[in-house]
């Protein structure tokens, strides 16, 4: 089915995603005064920097034909670890940051190993990981831990000025660097290509002698690491650790990746698409804020409708290329 996607068709979802973003931004600009400004655009990045980071990790997982449900909880756990180490153990950020990053990395590595060595389904394993991470963060504390530390305040508040009186945050820089590295990895390293190969057909990848084991474990490790990184960015953003942070974030992430044009069955998609996918989710929220009278649940309904549109679009593409393959 997906095997028959041809190159030109494959890029169509990405084109559609970008077109949709442009369309939505123009719609907002025409409808609301103050919408059409560089800062509104940049705010999309500032408010969703952490989402970009996890969406990048999730893209690799989904490209390989898997799924990672644990990312939202890992954000919460990372924020808890960072907060408690900083506030309760009074450790320096030089220790706190690496330790926090290790949290998700290790969890991801364990998940990847379980999935690979015991042939368990990613869905179930990362579901367990999701419970585990959230449970652990509650074990650290049920309450919110506010962070009051110069390093975190600096990361939260410093603005990097851009021409025209605009600014971005440090988190945005981190997110963009992550995205750039990820695009390079996806297209110009063997690891990246192996991810696509596994998503196309794991059996073939194995028979072709590709390092499937290493790659699969690495994918989940990477996703775990990025989730932790996103957790730190989220902590900078919220300046607190809390077990309920990022509740349901895995769904937003998956939605962003799908809207970004990646096939959920794996094997086709782009990291850049996922970034645009995140921006689309962001712009929906921005529009709802600008509208003022709309309630928050319209966000969910809108995301649902967009998901539907993109999924049907993917189906139509597959159908058309199947037809083409049939006659050709």
């Amino acid at each position, binding site marked *: 089915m997906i095997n028959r996607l041809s190159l030109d068709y494959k890029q169509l979802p990405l084109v559609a995603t970008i077109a949709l973003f442009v369309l939505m931004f123009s719609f907002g600009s025409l409808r609301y005064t103050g919408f059409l400004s560089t800062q509104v655009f940049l705010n999309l990045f500032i408010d969703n920097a952490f989402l970009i980071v996890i969406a990048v990790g999730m893209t690799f997982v989904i490209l390989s034909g898997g799924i990672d449900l644990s990312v939202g909880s890992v954000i919460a756990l990372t924020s808890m670890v960072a907060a408690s180490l900083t506030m309760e153990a009074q450790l320096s950020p030089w220790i706190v940051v690496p330790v926090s990053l290790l949290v998700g990395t290790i969890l991801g590595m364990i998940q990847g190993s379980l999935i690979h060595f015991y042939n368990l389904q990613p869905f179930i394993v990362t579901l367990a990981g999701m419970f585990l991470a959230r*449970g652990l963060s509650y074990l650290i504390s049920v309450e919110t831990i506010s962070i009051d530390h110069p390093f975190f305040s600096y990361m939260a508040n410093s603005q990097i000025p851009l021409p025209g009186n605009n600014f971005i945050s440090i988190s945005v820089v981190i997110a963009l660097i992550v995205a750039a590295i990820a695009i390079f990895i996806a297209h110009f390293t063997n690891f990246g290509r192996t991810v696509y190969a596994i998503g196309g057909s794991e059996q073939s990848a194995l028979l072709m002698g590709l390092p499937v084991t290493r790659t699969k474990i690495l994918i989940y490790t990477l996703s775990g690491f990025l989730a932790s990184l996103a957790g730190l960015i989220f902590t900078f953003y919220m300046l607190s650790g809390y077990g309920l942070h990022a509740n349901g974030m895995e769904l937003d992430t998956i939605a962003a990746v799908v809207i970004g044009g990646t096939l959920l069955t794996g094997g086709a998609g782009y990291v850049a698409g996922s970034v645009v996918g995140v921006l689309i989710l962001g712009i929906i929220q921005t529009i709802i804020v600008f509208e003022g009278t709309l309630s928050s*649940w319209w966000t969910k309904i809108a995301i649902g409708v967009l*998901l539907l549109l993109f999924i049907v679009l993917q189906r139509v593409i597959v159908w058309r290329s199947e037809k083409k393959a049939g006659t050709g």
Partner: protein
Amino acid sequence: MKAIIKSRLFWPILVLMLILLINLFFDSSFFSMEIRNGRLTGSLIDILNRGAPLILISIGMTLVIATKGIDLSVGSVIAMSGAIGAMTVASADGTGLGPLLMAIGLSLLICTFVGGWNGLLVSRVGVQPIVATLILMVAGRGVAQLITGGQITTVYYDPYSFIGGGYLLALPFSIFIAAFVFLIAVLLTRKTALGLFIESVGSNPDASRLAGINSKNIMLMVYMFSGFCAGVGGLILSSNVMSADGNNAGLWFELDAILAVVIGGTSLMGGRFYLTGTVIGALIIQSLTTTIYSIGIPAETNLVVKALVVLIVCLLQSPEFRRKVFGFGKVKGAGEQKGKEGATLL
């Protein structure tokens, strides 16, 4: 002995027993029951009663998973069902049964319908189940919040409480509902050829179509049934608390239900399904929650324990794990795994 260990139900039942025994260790009266005010009470009854919604939803989920599908939307459908039910009787008072029937009819109808929507996307449009139901999972909760206006709506109409809180023959009514749906599901799937067809479609949809089975309708049906089950579960949950909460009702239920199905021995790859296993799976999850509350472990650990149980059960079911740890379930499993994709063994 070997036959018993090999049985799909062995491990789930063992785990359930273990959890119950742990309870007995902490509370010697755990297994005791007594009749109070004509109502049978006791921890075991409590587990059954509280577990009823999960059992219901897991039964629907089992059939969906058997067709190689998955239904992520059940949690949102629960919220919708509760919202529709509660809003229908919100303005009713007194004891007339009209509004009650209206509420039940309306929510079940709509829930079956949205289940059918999932089914159409999967069977007719050809969307992967996880994606198709993700749409409703996201949008459905939005719709539930839309119905309740984002508020918790309280119901003051007495008959509504019977669904989830009533008693019949000294037993909670919800147990009867769950048992009834279970019975219907078993009868439909095991006494007719429906079960065979479902397993066939789940194992190889193309071949099933060529053998004359209407795969599309079978898929449509299981999603409708799953929607229906979630609807019933939603009514019970909303009736329990006599309110509708679009934000939180049914949260995480899809995950618990999938867990219950997997613990019960049905593979997420479709094919064979085990309804009794699912019910035991749901009971394991419920007793776990109850246990954690009753023996005084902080409630927060619930999630950690749940995660560990999931992992243990999945590992026990993994042929690779069994081979490495116990040395049985040997190579056969490996042969099957490898054989599945490439060449046959011989």
